[in-house]
């Protein structure tokens, strides 16, 4: 009886794939050349893209391809960064800037480095660009005209390492206070900071800023508010 009803239903209702029940699994990232990194993925091995880059921009602009931990990366001349990024975005499909960071290599020449991690969402490929910059002229062109998301990353690199980005629409410090004078991710910066560079709030509402970062360890005890000296306003009453 029930089978009959089912057969009738099969005949009368046309077969239709239910869209809501379809699952789109992310394809697994197959392992790549795992000679020195067992976690290296094939998606990070993009020698063909780097070859295309070299054909487009030539040898001085695009450096030698490097393999780091089984992943391909390339050093790019800093004055061609915008063109290279635009080419990768428009011609090679690397449409997503997944990260942009700075490195203090702490070497004599070309001390700093800006690292761009680009991702192609369609082809599931990743490429890493490195741009080296010397301490004497700490300026790198901003790629915020190509990737809008670069603005905050570049602000962060500027805040932490002091690398200025030419053409950035709003290059301000990201984390540290505006009037902070140092770049804390540089290697020579002491881990616990420069005493007096970051004042703590005053111990009473109208007091002076606390310049000692370890006031409590040096015996200072914030006063209970009922113990505070009278403010100017209270005295005027």
């Amino acid at each position, binding site marked *: 009886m029930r089978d009959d009803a089912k057969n009738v239903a099969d005949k009368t209702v046309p077969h239709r794939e239910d869209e809501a029940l379809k699952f789109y699994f992310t394809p697994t990232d197959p392992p790549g050349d795992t000679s020195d990194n067992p976690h290296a993925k094939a998606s990070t091995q993009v020698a063909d893209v780097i070859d295309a880059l070299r054909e487009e921009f030539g040898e001085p602009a695009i450096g030698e391809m490097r393999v780091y931990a089984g992943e391909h990366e390339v050093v790019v001349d800093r004055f061609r960064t915008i063109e290279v990024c635009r080419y990768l975005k428009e011609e090679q499909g690397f449409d997503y800037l997944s990260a942009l960071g700075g490195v203090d290599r702490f070497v004599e020449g070309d001390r700093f480095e800006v690292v761009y991690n680009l991702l192609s969402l369609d082809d599931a490929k990743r490429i890493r660009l490195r741009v080296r910059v010397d301490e004497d002229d700490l300026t790198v062109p901003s790629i915020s005209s190509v990737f809008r998301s670069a603005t905050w990353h570049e602000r962060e690199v500027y805040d932490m390492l002091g690398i200025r980005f030419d053409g950035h629409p709003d290059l301000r410090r990201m*984390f*540290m*206070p505006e009037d902070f004078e140092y770049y*804390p991710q540089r290697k020579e*910066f*002491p*881990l*616990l*900071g*420069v005493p007096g560079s*970051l*004042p*703590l*709030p*005053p*111990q009473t*509402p109208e007091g002076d800023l*606390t310049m000692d*970062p*370890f*006031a*409590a*360890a040096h015996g*200072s*005890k*914030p*006063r*209970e*508010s*009922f*113990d505070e000296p009278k403010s100017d306003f209270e005295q005027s009453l």
Partner: protein
Amino acid sequence: MDANQGFFTTRVDAVMNWARSNSLMPMPMGLACCAIEMMAFAGPKYDSARYGSEAMRFSPRQADLMLVAGWCSYKMAHAVRRVWDQMPDPKWCIAIGACASTGGMHRCYGVVQGIDNFLPVDVYVPGCPPRPEAISHALLDIQEKIRNDYTLANDYSIGEDAPPVPANRPKVLTGSGQQSISPEALYQQDDA
């Protein structure tokens, strides 16, 4: 009134402090992950409403207990101190978690190494993060401090010395009013 009806004597201070300690209005200063535990402490399972302090006041002018939960950067310290200055007296402060108490694992240039560098902290809660029970215990400690420390009559703001801390809380007297009830007696089964 018949003395055998059962009564106890007290001071206005004790009543005020009792009321104050059982209606603490916390100012949640959630700065990092400890704030999640602070929310659990205020939520139904750990239920700070049992102690009368479920009403988190997001305006400092209506709060008298600041819960600083999480690591505090030098930049944030100024905002925290500003909020603290806006809270009316009397007010208390709990440093929740290792980071708020000492800087914790953030021994670096950007994080204040303990909020007691700029705030008068009453209770420190260790843990990374502390369990909500630990925050409840800190609240009980604050209540204990309010009942014993602060008095309305001897307001410290008029320059008087703080009175000595009473040895015990107000005693519960027996029906006859003659002797105090021993703690064991409270748990004894009444045969009659």
